[in-house]
C-alpha cells in the first residue's frame, strides 16, 4: 500500500477519478464548506484523496480526528448518517475548518455538494494495469463489489 501511496499522482488516475477530482476542485473553487465524495468500496476514493493531498494544500485523515489544525481537510471513511454529519459541522466550527472533503460509501445525509465516484468496469482494468506498472500484484487490485 505504501508503494501505491508514494506513487500516487495525477498520471495514475482513471478517467472517472480525474472527473471526480476536477469536480471536488470546482466545488472548492465555489467556496463550498463541505464536499461529500462518495462511491462504492474499491472505487478508488482513498487513492483519489492521496492525489488531491499531493496536488494541493489538503491534509488527509483516515477518519474524523479529535482536533484538526489545517483549514482544508479530507476525512476518509466517514459515517454517512445525519447524526455523524451534524457532528462534522460542529467539528468544523470548533476547529475553524474552511473546507472539508468527507468521504463515504453512500451519500452522506445533509451534506452537499456531493461528488460521486462510481466508475465503469474499464476503471478497474486501468487500475490493474497501473498496479502492474508499479510492480504490485494485479490480482489483488481493486475490483467492483459484486452485488
Amino acid at each position, binding site marked *: 500500500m505504501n508503494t501505491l501511496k508514494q506513487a500516487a499522482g495525477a498520471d495514475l488516475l482513471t478517467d472517472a477519478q480525474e472527473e471526480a477530482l476536477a469536480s471536488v476542485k470546482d466545488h472548492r473553487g465555489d467556496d463550498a*464548506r463541505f464536499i461529500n465524495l462518495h462511491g462504492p468500496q474499491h472505487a478508488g476514493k482513498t487513492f483519489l484523496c492521496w492525489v488531491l493531498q499531493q496536488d494541493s494544500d489538503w491534509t488527509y485523515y483516515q477518519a474524523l480526528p479529535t482536533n484538526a489544525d489545517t483549514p482544508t481537510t479530507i476525512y476518509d471513511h466517514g459515517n454517512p448518517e445525519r447524526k455523524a454529519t*451534524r*457532528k462534522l*459541522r*460542529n467539528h468544523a*466550527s*470548533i476547529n475553524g475548518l474552511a473546507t472539508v472533503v468527507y468521504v463515504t460509501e453512500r451519500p452522506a445525509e*445533509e451534506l*452537499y455538494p456531493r461528488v460521486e465516484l462510481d466508475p465503469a468496469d474499464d476503471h478497474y482494468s486501468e487500475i490493474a494495469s497501473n498496479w502492474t506498472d508499479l510492480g504490485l500484484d494485479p490480482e489483488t487490485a481493486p475490483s467492483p463489489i459484486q452485488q
Partner: protein
Amino acid sequence: MSTQTLTENVDDLFDLVRKSEGIISTFEARSLETEPETVEEEYRRYANTHVSLGDTSEFEQEIYEKVTEQGSPAKGYLYGPYGYGKTSTAVSIWNTLSEQEIIAVPPFTMDSFAAIMRATYGWMRHEFDNKAPDYVDDLDDIHERYLQQELRAVAKQKQDQHDLDFDKLVQMFEEMEQENNLDLSINADTLIDFFDECTELAQDAGFDALVVVGDEFQEYLNSADNQKDAESRFRQLVFGLHSGAQIRDEFGLFISMPEKTKSTFDSRAEDILNRLQRDNLVLNLQTVYGREFPAELWSRYADRFGFTDEQHDVISEHALTATGEVCSRNDLSNGPRTVIDIFRLALKQYLDTQETFTALDLAEAFYEGDVRYQGSSTKIQSAIGDALDHSAADTPEKQTFLKLCAVFPVEGIPDSVVEEYELEDARESLSKKIHGEVIKVIADGYTLIDVTKRDGPEDVVQQLIRDFWREYSVGHGSAEHAVDALANKLLNEGIFEAKRGTLDGWTNGGGSLNEIQHTVYKDQFDGTFDTRFPKRRLNVAVSDDTSQDEIVGEHGSLGEYFGDPDLAFNFVLTWESGDGHEHNSHIKKESDREFTFVLDGRQSFDELPQGLDFLRDAMDPNAVTPFLMLALVQYLEDPNTELDAQQENRVESFQQSLLDQALKALFDETLISNAPVSLRRAGKRAVEGLFTSVMEDLYPDYHTVITSTQYKDMMQDYADFLASLDTISKRRGSETVNEPKEDVAERFGLRKTSPFDGRIRKHYSDLLTVENEEAEEYEVRAELHPLETEIIDRLESGSEDELALAEVEGIAYEKGYRNEEVDVISQFMQARGIVGMNETGDALVIQEADVSVGDVESALSDARELVDTIEELDPDRVPNDVPEQLDDLETDLDQTNPDASEKLEAIHVEAKYVIDRLEEVGELLHSHHQSECDDLKTKAERKRRSLIPDHLENEVTGGVQFVGGLNDARSELIAEFRAVKSDLTDLIEDLEDARREHNSPTVAAAHDLHQEVEDARNILDSIETDTNDLEEYAEELKRWRTFTDKAANVKQDIKDYSRTFDEALDEEDDIEDFIAQIAERLVENPLDALMNRDAFEERLEHIEESYQQRREQRREVFDAKRETLKTVLDEATEGGTVGLRSATFDVKQPDESRRHLLEDFKSEYESQVLDNAEEKLENAHNEIEYAQIVGVEADTDADPDRVAEEIEQAKAKLRSLRTSLSRFDFQDIDEETELAEEGNELVTEANDLADKARKFRAQSDPEDEPVQDLLHRVENNRGADFKELLMEYHDDGDNIEVDELLERMEQLFKLNQIDIKIMQRRGRR
C-alpha cells in the same frame, strides 16, 4: 435600503442559503463546557443572520413571561418532523432569552442527565466568566460537590463489586469524566437540587432566571441502557419540576424532540407530556408552517436582502404556491428544509441565467433529482417519470402539463397556470385519455394520482378487505368472528386490558377468554377501573343475541364471601334483525351485582367513520356495521395471504382503527342513555362508569388501604409509625404528635420530608390528619381507619366483650374490604394497643390501659433509686433537671384521679422517660466502671506476669559449701512467690467474673461492678505490699550469687598461691573457716542469713587483702629483675633501646613470667646490639674489599688492609658476646656480666669501622685538567654514551684517542666520581 443591485442581493442570500442550507447542528454538552465561545459564536451568527424559519416570537415571549413571572418552574417542549427546524427554533428561543437578564443554556444534545448537568455548569461558567466573575468559584464548588457525590457513588458501587481501591477508583472516574467516557447515572432528585442551587446562584449574581434548552431529546432515550429506567428518571424530573417543591420558581426547562419521540411518549408516557405541557409552552412546528409559508419566508428574505419589489423576478408566484403545496406534505418533502433547498435552486438559476424560477422549473428540479430533500421517498420524481412513460404523453405540451400537475399535489394545477403555459388543449386531451388512471381532479384542478395523499391502507390490505367482502354475509359464520373479536379484542385486550405496575386494569391470567361454545365466552377478571375499589373480581360473559340465555343469570354466587366475584358484566352482541326495535342498545340490571350490555351490532353509518372512508373502494358502505367491523377484525387476524413484517404492522394498525370505531359505535350515547344508572360518558368509559357506580352503591362505607401496588410497605410504615408512638392516646388520635416534620417523617422510615406530603395525600388520607403544616411545629393526628372505628365501636358499645374474627371478617366483607385489608387493619388496631386477641386467638377484645397508680409509683420509686445510686457513684452525673422533674411527676400523681388511665399512662411514660435518661447515664457509668475493672485486671495480670524474678529459677552454683544453704533459701522464696501468684490469679478471675456478672449497661450493674472493683483493688494493694519484702529477699539472693563467686575465687587464688610458691598461708585456713561459718548460718536461718551478706562481704575482703599483700611482694621481686636487665640493655646501647615493656608478672604463673622476661631481654639485646654491630661490620668489610680490588684513590690515610683486620677482630668479639648471651639465665641477672660493657664496646667499634670503610667510597677531585674537563662534561648526573662523548671531543677540536678517553674515565672511576655501564650494541644480532 440596500444600495446593492438585485444580483448582488440575490448573491448574498444565495451565499447564506447555500452554506447553511438552514441547518444548524446541535453542539454536544461537552462543547458548552470546553468550547463555549465557539458555541456562542455559531449559534449567535445563525440566529442573527437567518430569518427565523417560522414565526415563533410570540412563543418566545410567552416563555420569557412564564420563567420570570410564574409561581413555579416553567417547562415546555417543541416538536416536529425532520426538517422542520427544531434546532433553529431552539436557537432562536435561546437567543431571545439570553438577550434578557437570563442565563439561557443554549441547545445541546440532551443525551443524559449528566449531559444536562455538564451543559448547565459549562454555560453558567461561561456567562459568569464574562458577566459575574465573582461567582465563578461558588459555581465551581457546586459543580464539584455534585460531581464528587456522583463519582463517589459510582466508585463505591464498583468498589463493592470488584474489591478495588476506593481512592484510585475516584481518581480514575474523575479522569474518565473529564474525557467524557463515564456514564454517570444521576437521578432526578440530584439534578433538581443541582438546578435549584444553580438558579439561586444565578439570582445572587444578578440574573433573573436560569433556563436550560435541551435539544435532540430522542438521544436521551436512544443512549439509555434501559429505556424504562430512563423514562422513569425523566418522569421523576418532570414531576419534580412540576411540583416545584424542591426548586425555585425562576428556573425553566425546554426540550426539543422529533415528532416520533413525541408520539412514543403519547402512547407510553402520556403522564410525562401532560406535566410538561401544563404551562402551555408547547410548540408543534408542523403547525407553524402552512402552505403559505414559502411565500411568506421568501417575502421576508426579499425584505431583508432588499429586493422586495423584484422578489418575483427570482421566483414566480406560481412556483411559490407549488412549493407551498409540496412542502405542506410530509410524504413529498421535508417541510421547511425542502423550501430552503428550492430557494437555493431558484437563486442559483437566477444568478446563473437571470431567469425566473417557475413552477415548471420546480417540476423539472424534482424530476431531475436536483431537489435534495424530497421526504422519505422520491414520490414526485417517480410520479412524473411514470406519467411521462404513458403513451398518452406524446407531445411536449402534454408532458409539461403532467409535470406541472405533479407540483400541485394538494389543490391541483390552477387554471391560471394552464393558461400561462397555454396547455388547455393538452389538458383536455389528457383528461379524455388518462383521467382516473394517471390524473384526477382535486379542488382547483388536475394533479397526478400518484402524488395524491391516500388515507387508508393500501395494496395487500385492500386486497384482504376485498376478499373479506366477497365472503362476508350477516349470519352465524360472521357472528362467530364478530363475537370472538368482541370478546378477545375489544373487551379482553381493550376495555379490560392489563396494566403493569398499577392498580387499575384487569387480568384474566393472560390468554383468550374461555370459549364455552360458539359465540359464548366466559371468564373471570381481577382488577379495577377505579382505584378507590381495587382488586375486584369480575365475571365477564360474551355472546350474541342468539345465545344470551347461556350467560345471563349464569354466574353462580356473587359477592357472598371472600373469593366470590363482586360483579358480573354480560355483553350481548345483537345482529339478527327482526324485532323492529330501532334503538335496542341498552344496559340491563339483572341483579344488584349483574348487568347486561346489549350492544347493537346492526347499526349502519350515515358517513363512514373517520379513517375508514376507503372501505368504500372495497365494499358497499351501507353494509358497514359494528358487526361487520368486528368480523373483519377477526378475519384479518388470520389472513390467507402471507404478510411481511411491514404489512403485518399495517394490518394491525387497521384492525385497531376498526376496533376503535366499533367501540365507539357499540358503546354509544344510545347505550348510556338506556342504562339503569346515570352514565356520563360513552365508549370504554361507559363500562368504567357503570363499574364505579355499582361499587359506590354496593360499598358506600368502603375506604381502601390498598392505595398502590406497594401498599403493604406503605401500611407497614404506618403501623411502624403507630408502634413508635409512646402513648395510646397518640396512637389512637385523641392526642396529636407534635414534633418537627423531619422527626415525624422519620417515624415512617423517611429520611427526607419532601416525599412525605405526597404519601399522606396518596396513602394515608384516611389515617393521618395534619393539624399544623409548619415544619418546625408540625403536628399530626393518627386517625382510626373507618373499619377500625366500626369494630371498636361495636366492642365498646356492644354487650359482648369480644368480637369473633369470623364476625369481623363478615363485617369487613360486607363493607367491601378484601381479606388482605382486614389483616392490615387488624395490624393497625393491635399497633394502637386498643384491640387485641382473646386468649384462644379467635376473637378481638378491647385492651384496657393497664397502668395503675401503683405502676406509676413504682416507676417513680425506681427513678429515685437510680438517682441515689448515680449520686453515690458520681454526683456530677445526675442530670440537673431530673430531681425536679420527679418532684413534679409525684405532684401530678397525687393530683390525678386513679381512674384517669390515660393521664396515669402519660405520667408513667414520663417517669419511664426519666428512667431511660437515667439509664443512659447508667450506661456511661457502667462503661466507666467496666474500664476501671479492665484496668485493674490488666494491672493484676502485669503484676502476675513479672512477679517471680527469673533468676530464682536458676540454681546457685559455686565452689563453696554454703551454696546448698543458698539454694534452700531460694526454694523457700519461690514457694512464697508462687503463693502470691495464686492469689493474683484468684483476683483476676474474680474481676473477670464480676465483669461477666455485671455486664448489662445499667445503673445497678455499674454500682455492683464498682463495689467489686474496689474490693479487688484493696486486695491487690495488700499483695503488692507483701511482694515488696519477697522482692528484697530475691534481690539479695541475686547479690549472693556474685558474692558466692567472689568467695570461691578468693579461696581458689589462695590455694593456688600456696601451691605455686609452695608456701603455707594463714589465709588458707581463714577462708575455709569463713565459708563454713556462712554455711552454718544459712542452715540455721536461710532468709535472715541472706540479709547479712554485707558483714560476710567485709570479712571476705579482709582475707583477700591479706593474701593480696603476699602476692604483691612476689611481683616486686620480679620487677627488680626486669629493671636490672633494662640497665644492661641501656648500657650496651647507650640508651638506644626501649625494650622489656611487655614483660609482666603473673602470680599464678611465676615461671612463665620469668621465662618471658628473659626471652624479651635476649631478643632485644640480639637485635639492638649484636645484629646491629654485625650488619655494620659486614658493610665495612664489603667497602674495604672493593677498595682493595679497585685500588681506589681515596682521600684517606687509612690502610685498607689494616681496617680489614680490625673488622675481623670486632667480629670475633661479636661471636664471643653471642655465646655469652645464649648462656645467660634468670639466676645470672643480678650477677656481674660482660654483656653491658663489652656490648657497648662492640657497638662503638662497629660504628668506627663503618666510618673508616665509608671513606674509601668517598669522591675525590681529579687533579689533571683533562680529567676535570671530562668530569665537567658529565656533571649533574648527565649520562653520556661513550661514542657520543668521543665525538663531542672531536667536534670541539680535541682529537682525543679512544684509549686516552678510557684512561681519563678510569681515573674518574677510581676517584669515585663516575659509574661505568657497558652493554651490547643494538642491531648486532
